Every structure is written in C-alpha cells, then in structure tokens.
C-alpha cells in the first residue's frame, strides 16, 4: 500500500510535467495543423536556461523558471517567425523537415554552450513529508501544485481572455477568424510563445529529479506525441487526461512489471488507441 501511494505521487508529478509539455504541442497542432517535432528540444532548452539562471546567475528557483519561460517564449516566437511563418503555404512535409532541422540546431546550440555531458541541477527544495506512510519529496509536491496552478491559469486565459480566445477561434474556423479581424500570424506567434513557455515550466520543474543533457528532449518528444494522440490531436482536455494517464501507466508498469516495460508502455498505449479509437479519446476537428 505504501509503495502504491509512493508511486501514485510519482505518477501525478510526472503527469503534471507531461501535461505542461503536451499542451503546447496540442495547441500548436490545433492552430497551425503541424506536428512540431522540435517541441522536445524547446523543453530541453528550457531546462538548460532554467539551470543557467539558477546555478550560473543564482536567482531563486521559482524566479529562474519564470525567467527561463520568458526567454523560451521569445525563442518560440522567433522559431515561428523564422522557420514556420515563411512555410505557412508550403506542403506539410516542409514543416516536418524544418522542424527536424530546428531540433538539430537547438541540440547543437545546447551542446556548444553547456557541453554534451550530463549536468545535475541540485534540488532547491529538499526534504519530504510522510503521507499515509509514504515518503513524498517536497519537489514532487511542488511539481503537482505548480502544474495545477499553471493549468488553471492557462484554461482561464484560453477560455476567458480575448487574446486566448483567438487561439480557439483560429482552431474552429480560420476564415471566420480572419473576417472578424483576428490575424492568424499573431495567433501563431502567441501559440508558439505559450507552448515554449509551458514546456520550460515542465522542464524546470522536473530538472532537479532528472539529469540535463542536450538529448533529454528526444524521449519526451515521443511521449508527448503519444499523449496528444491518446487525447485527440488539438484537444486541451485530451492533453491533460492523456498526460496523467500515460504518466500513471508508466510509473505503475515500471514498479509492478519492470522498468523497461515502463519505458515502453507509452507506445503500447499509442498502438492500442490507434487501433481502437484512431481519433483519440477527446476527438475534435482533426479532419481538415
């Protein structure tokens, strides 16, 4: 039972991280209809920039994540302007090739600045509490709480604020959006900036638990794609439910079956979803 509670908390913390990373990807898909294969490298850069502010500059942990999110939002906007905007009328394959190019570029930049070796970010929040006999580290509690707060703010932004609503407007009807004066180009920039900032929050939260490496985004990239396919491409609730489902499945499988099976479970889930319900659990306008 204690083991189960322990794993449940680990799963929730991991789920929070997956959600934050997956939401950006699903928003970009909803607005631009492109799978941003470079999303994992934005997450990786987010982790390194957080590391830079925390360790090199020496600002407090939460401020470091916040500053890194702002830096990555700018990088996200630049990525949209320089790489994806010029390709907006090009065939789909061009976006994917460009995204792979951006991925290699970001990895090379990270390697040039921080080197290829693993780096460790000491957990700024130490200690743990005992809940129902299970030792839960404060870091994991912080992850879950922050994820919930950020998801709440994001939902408010997208549903209530006029700028956030433009994201949904573009997803639902591009022509209608243009005709009310919403500029697709501005919404694309907003979406990329937001997606990169969310990936950074995810990375900054999980960095003290994991190690930093220029390739750390690769595994995450595959998993967030699994999550948004599971939840339904472009669906916000889908990304949230998918994120927690996959994280819990992963943690539980690692514990009760084997660690290797835990790593593979994401892909078992994708295969099952694609076989049984190819549009995802929360299907929305995937067809063009």
């Amino acid at each position, binding site marked *: 039972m204690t083991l189960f509670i322990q794993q449940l908390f680990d799963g929730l913390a991991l789920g929070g991280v997956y959600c934050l990373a997956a939401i950006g990807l699903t928003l970009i898909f909803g607005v631009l209809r492109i799978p941003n294969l470079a999303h994992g490298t934005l997450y990786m850069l987010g982790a390194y920039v957080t590391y830079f502010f925390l360790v090199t500059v020496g600002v407090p942990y939460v401020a470091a994540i916040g500053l890194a999110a702002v830096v990555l939002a700018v990088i996200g906007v630049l990525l949209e302007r320089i790489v994806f905007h010029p390709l907006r009328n090009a065939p789909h394959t061009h976006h994917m090739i460009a995204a792979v190019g951006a991925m290699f570029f970001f990895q090379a930049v990270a390697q040039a600045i921080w080197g290829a070796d693993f780096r460790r970010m000491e957990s700024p929040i130490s200690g743990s509490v005992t809940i129902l006999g299970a030792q839960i580290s404060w870091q994991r509690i912080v992850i879950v709480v922050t994820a919930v707060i950020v998801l709440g703010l994001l939902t408010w932004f997208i549903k209530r604020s006029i700028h956030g609503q433009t994201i*949904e*407007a573009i997803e639902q*009807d591009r022509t209608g959006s*243009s005709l*009310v004066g919403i500029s697709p180009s501005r919404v694309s920039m907003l979406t990329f900036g937001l997606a990169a900032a969310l990936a950074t929050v995810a990375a900054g939260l999980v960095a003290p638990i994991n190690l930093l490496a220029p390739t750390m985004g690769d595994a995450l990239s595959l998993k967030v794609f699994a999550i948004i396919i599971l939840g339904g491409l472009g669906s916000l609730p889908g990304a949230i439910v998918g994120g927690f489902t996959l994280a819990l499945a992963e943690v539980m499988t690692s514990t009760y079956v084997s660690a290797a099976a835990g790593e593979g479970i994401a892909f078992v889930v994708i295969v099952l979803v694609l076989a049984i319900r190819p549009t995802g659990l929360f299907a929305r306008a995937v067809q063009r």
Partner: protein
Amino acid sequence: MLTVRGLSAGYDAVDVLHAVDITARAGELTVVLGANGSGKTTMFRTISGIVRPSAGSIDFDGRQLPDLSADSIVKAGLAHCPEGRHLFAKMPVEKNLMLGGYVRRRNRGRVRELLEHVYELFPILHDKRHQPAGTLSGGQQQMAAIGRSLMSDPSLLILDEPSMGLAPLVTAQVLDAVAQINRDGIGVLLAEQNAQTALRIGHHGFVLAEGRVVLSGTASELLDHPDVREAYLGV
C-alpha cells in the same frame, strides 16, 4: 463608400472576376444579383482581403483595400458576413459575438453597446447566448453571423447570401433585419437569390454573369428590367 474599379481576381492564376466595376454608396443598400458561379463570392472575398486581386482597385472611404491586411480592413469599418456563415461552432453565441468585436476590444463601452444593439435586433440570440453556435437552427446561425459582423461596428456590411438554405418565413425575417440594419445607417452590400425581396429593400443593384457586370441601375429599374424579370423573377 466603396468603389471597385477594373477588379480581376481568382484562384491559382485562373481569374473568376474580369474587370468588375461596382459602387456601394455610403448608407445605401446595394444588391448584387447573379447565378451560382457568377463571381459574387469571389468579389466579396477579394474586397475583404481573403483573396488577393490580380488587377484593379478597391477604394473604401479613400483607402486602397488591397494594400491592407484582412484585419486592418475590418478595423477600417468593412465587415464581411460570409456565405456558409463560418461561425465558431463550439463556442457559445455570446463568445462568437464578443469575438466579432475583437478589433474594437480596447473600447469596452462601445462593445457593450454593440452587443446590446445586436440583442435588440435579434432577441433570440439573447435567449440562446450560452448555447454553442453550432447547435442553433439555420436561421438563428445566420442571425448570429450577421450579429457577429455588426459587432465590429462597420460602416459597410457585406452579406453573402444570408438566406441560403433557409425556409421562406425565416428568409423574410432575416431580410427584414437587413433592411433594419440599413435604416440604422449602415451601408449594405447584399448578394441574394431572392431578387425580388432584395431589390425591394435595396437602392441600387448590379447583375453579375460569368465574372462580369452585365447590368446595373437603381433597384426599381432592375425590378422592371425584362432580363432581370426573366432570369430572376420567373416572370
């Protein structure tokens, strides 16, 4: 006032419109008649900046519209309520309307006024304001689409076949509302299949055929014109 001169436009280098001249005077209701495929929708889409013209000029209150982006055109006071409505189907009616006021978002007071005005014009939208727009009936969706266009506080409203697919009674309601909007001082450029009703509420009219203006005149001239009577009124 909208002045279109020598306008040619189309898709993938094939022109659908050929040197079209059309004028919509300020505050008047101008009717555009024409069979399916005559170029009405393409003309409207070119005016509102969705399609780029291959030749010609579009002057709106002294500004050249092809130089402006689609959102600046809305800001300049030209609203386009498209064929097929293009509502945000999963959003509540009121959110659709508020997004219609997107370009006026900094003037909250004005947006409130416009919203109240739209609800006065279409009380049913007030009753259904919390329902997703996609769940409304065809006529109500058309009203929501017109309302959304009015939310941008236009001086000229382009309406592309607002009665398409509606029952006769609902069509009459929608066209009554169009006449009311025009009486309130907003210029209207209306494409309509119901030539008779449209010309009755209109001031001037143009007939398009195969991408060219083949006939123009005051509404009453067109109503009496033998070609129009034969082609559109079934007389």
